[in-house]
């Protein structure tokens, strides 16, 4: 029976359950609000499933334990919130350079600095434009519900393994802590994992494997970077994800992701009630950003309103896609502020 597979859980727990469903049996993390439920959940679930749970001494240690687990070929995850994610950046760069799969979850809170523990979307630049050093990208997925927290986390492991590349789940404090009914997808559990002949397992019956990002010989590192770029082109082609809601005839298109996207969706309906043709463009993959889909939208007179819980980060990608700055407006709240429907409506109506 279908109802049997529906459970009421928080977004943080849904994310953890998605990892378990993906066959992830390695978790390392360090406590930080607003994602503590996730760490606690993993502690319980790893025990139940015979996996590894380590409360690490820091986020630095946690990401590098995940690096080690990935070196050994395991599906591994670490989760944190903004300040902790800053600490993980060196490790994420090493994962990208060593071409290792891993999933990193950022339940964003207000920054900069210690900031506050209220929800935020101010780590968009960090997640999508690099974050650590070097020429690399992480695939970045942005859920907007507890269901997506689960489903996208599960998907994240497949993407990470397929491209041998780190994947970030970018949520926020609201998504992490709210509760919703979630449908558990039983089928996906059986999904077979890709074999990993590159992993370090002891060199029995084969030549030793080595994993490294240090490439000192002439041209070697440039070659790696070219190869990474090719991989990123493939990811752009195959893994761009988005939701469009009533955009076909829209004159005002609100572009927003995650929690902001959800609030904006309600605004679209309210604007439609007022006979204003509004639509929602919600990127689900923030990297790769759905530039092409966005570029195709609207006619000459269509206006775009970007809504974020930041002072304006994704808006830069929207401008790149639309290629007409006059058509792109922005509304944002920052430092833990959440845009209300009324504020978004007011801004949308002012564009008319």
């Amino acid at each position: 029976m279908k109802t049997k597979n529906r459970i009421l859980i928080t977004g943080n727990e849904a994310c953890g359950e998605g990892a378990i469903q993906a066959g992830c049996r390695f978790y390392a993390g360090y406590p930080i609000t607003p994602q503590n439920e996730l760490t606690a959940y993993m502690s319980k679930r790893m025990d139940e499933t015979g996996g590894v749970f380590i409360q690490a001494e820091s986020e630095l240690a946690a990401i590098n334990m995940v690096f080690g687990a990935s070196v050994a070929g395991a599906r591994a995850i670490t989760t944190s919130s903004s300040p902790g994610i800053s600490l993980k950046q060196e490790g994420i760069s090493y994962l990208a350079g060593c071409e290792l799969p891993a999933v990193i979850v950022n339940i964003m809170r207000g920054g900069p600095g210690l900031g506050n523990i209220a929800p935020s979307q101010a780590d968009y630049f960090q997640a999508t434009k690099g974050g650590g050093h070097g020429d690399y990208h992480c695939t970045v997925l942005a859920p907007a519900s507890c269901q997506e927290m689960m489903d996208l986390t599960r998907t994240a492991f497949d993407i990470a393994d397929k491209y041998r590349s780190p994947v970030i789940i970018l949520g926020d404090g609201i998504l992490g802590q709210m509760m919703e009914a979630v449908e558990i997808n039983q089928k996906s559990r059986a999904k077979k994992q890709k074999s990993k002949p590159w992993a370090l397992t002891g060199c029995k019956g084969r030549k030793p494997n080595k994993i490294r990002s240090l490439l000192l010989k002439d041209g070697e590192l440039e070659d790696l970077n070219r190869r990474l770029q090719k991989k990123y082109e493939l990811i752009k082609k195959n893994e761009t994800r988005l939701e469009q809601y009533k955009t076909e005839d829209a004159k005002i298109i609100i572009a927003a992701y995650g929690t902001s996207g959800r609030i904006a969706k309600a605004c679209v309906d309210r604007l439609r009630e007022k006979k204003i043709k509004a639509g929602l463009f919600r990127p689900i993959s923030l990297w790769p950003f759905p530039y092409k889909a966005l570029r195709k939208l609207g006619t000459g007179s269509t206006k775009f309103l970007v809504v974020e819980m930041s002072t304006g980060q994704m808006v830069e990608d929207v401008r790149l896609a639309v290629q007409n700055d006059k058509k792109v407006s922005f509304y944002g709240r920052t430092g833990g502020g959440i845009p209300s429907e009324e504020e978004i409506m007011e801004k949308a109506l002012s564009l008319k």
Partner: protein
Amino acid sequence: MEKIIFKKPNSMKDALTHYCAGCGHGIIHRLVCEVIDELGIREKVIAVAPVGCAVIAYDYWNFDTTEAAHGRTPAVATGIKRVYPEKVVFTYQGDGDLAAIGTAETIHAANRGENITVIFVNNGVYGMTGGQMAPTTIVGQRTTTTKKGRDLKRDGFPLKISEMIAILEGAKYIERTAVSSPKEILRTKRAIKKAFEIQIKNEGFSMVEVLSMCPTYWGMSPEDSCKRIEKDIQKVYPLGVLKG
């Protein structure tokens, strides 16, 4: 009949190392490889190389090896070992890697009783970056960042991290040895073997600190470097079993 009295261990690739004349890393690499051969574990070993002079150890070692970010070596080893408890996992780290940038990872891996082996090469300087002060540099020692010699007031005390780790309940076996003479080299080999055996018996964290020469950044001949270990360095870092 000819009798083989010297050969490269199976665990060692047939390569010339990049190490400077008189450097201890080459000796210690070889000892590790001999022990791995003798224990018959080459195909179960997974090694973690540091950031430091030994960063390309995987070009010399004939078994599975990964790099790790500077100092995060024991965290990476922890991840591997927890995935594969039945494999033999070891880190090879310099004093900067282990006792400065990676202090937290080292202490917590030991304190968790992580069943890994750490080969800790104490040469008293940062070799790879050109001979700066290390946490282990002894008082008065000149380096590129202590031109007048390590000054207690400005630079603090040499860090005796093995003594610190020895008091942790999770640490099973901690020994300090040297590679400054054939006799000490043999002792070092015995200590490395014991450390691996402890891991194989699932007894917990084992570490061998090896006092090693860096003639290049000590500014002396290989021979004088060996003498310096016996005369000066061992006064600060006495040899022996600290735990086990």
